[in-house]
């Protein structure tokens, strides 16, 4: 398959959007992935699930606002250039 750099950017934007729309209390807590449910003891390896939950939470915290701008730019570009 022939990737262009723009298709990589599009794929990245879609993935980050998918992570950012996961709601904390409506969804993540229901399936046990909430931020307050990762009880990790000190000196213990966090494990994959806790790391993943941390990652989801930090992506949501960091990327919420820049995603607004990036999505708007992407929408305008798609409208103009198809």
């Amino acid at each position: 398959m022939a990737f262009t750099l723009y298709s990589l950017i599009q794929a990245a934007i879609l993935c980050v959007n998918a992570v950012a729309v996961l709601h904390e209390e409506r969804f993540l807590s229901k399936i046990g992935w909430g931020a307050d449910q990762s009880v990790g003891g000190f000196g213990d390896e966090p494990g994959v699930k806790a790391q993943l939950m941390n990652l989801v939470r930090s992506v949501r915290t960091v990327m919420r606002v820049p995603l607004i701008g990036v999505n708007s730019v992407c929408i305008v570009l798609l409208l103009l250039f198809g």
Partner: protein
Amino acid sequence: MWDKGSSYPPAVYSSPTHYSPIPTGTHPRTNTPTLHVLTLVPADHSSRHQNMDLSHHGYRATKQRARPAPPTGDPVLFEDTSSAALGPSSQGYYASGYNMEGPPNDTQGGPGMNNLFADPMASAAMMYGSSLANRGQEIVNKEIGRFMSVNKLKYFFAVDTRYVLKKLMILMFPYTHQDWDVRYHRDTPLTPRQDVNAPDLYIPTMAFITYILLAGMALGIQKRFSPEVLGLCASTALVWVIIEVLIMLLSLYLLTVHSDLSTFDLIAYSGYKYVGIIFTMTCGLLFGSDGYFVALAWSSFAIMFFIVRSLKMKILTSVSSDSMGMGSSAKPQIRIYITVATAIFQPIIIYWLTSHLVR
């Protein structure tokens, strides 16, 4: 060849002693970023190859343009070790090396002796222009330095001819290499010049560019060439490198493998397979489909062996955050899985990137 240790050729123009030079601003003589890595490396680098590769020259030239003053803090990183021993004359080397580029920016000699142009206005304008260029270069360096550490990047490009040759041999035939440890010097890793096991970014960059050129040539042989295809091939390969590095970073983070592999290390290790790709494509172009598959098998095994041995040192023996030993029973398995998965991924990519080029 640059003649080292000699000053700029004596004035053949009339010396304009009647005008005062326009002050060109402060040169950051003391502000050059130094890499606090090496202090004890012996300066005797004799018995190297006499011919330096041209790209090394080219890199050195741009290095000089970026820094108006010779970097006194890290002579070992950028000392030229591929020719005869230079040690004490490195200062003069930098002076002459910089002077070879064009009108010197008056860092070495006394003031106001640019005996370049008979016309003082033109030489004054030249000095002003070069000071503007230097200022712009500093700004660019500062901005780039916000996103990534330029010093860390310089570490990866501190190579010389001997290292490149040995590394290429190891990449193609890693079965006889005995010692795979990356040697350290007071907690900091040695530069690629001193340690042949250290990763570098020079070989992957050059191999990547050579791959793009070879792909263009292969497509031209099949009469499918157009300039857009070249760009497409380049961005496809770049995307695969980015994907692989991202997957590696993600898996190393999620499985809490605390290794000292930085992003640049991962880019380097994932770029080493382009040497195998070049070898495979060359054999495919020269010897047809049979040669292609033989070379594919050879370079696949070589790259897999190389990756497993190199990453084993870095991933499997890294210190985990807890030394209790409680959760560490699963750790070596996970690390082995990561190493093996990375190794398996390489031949797949090699095949993917080259099969459509060699029919």
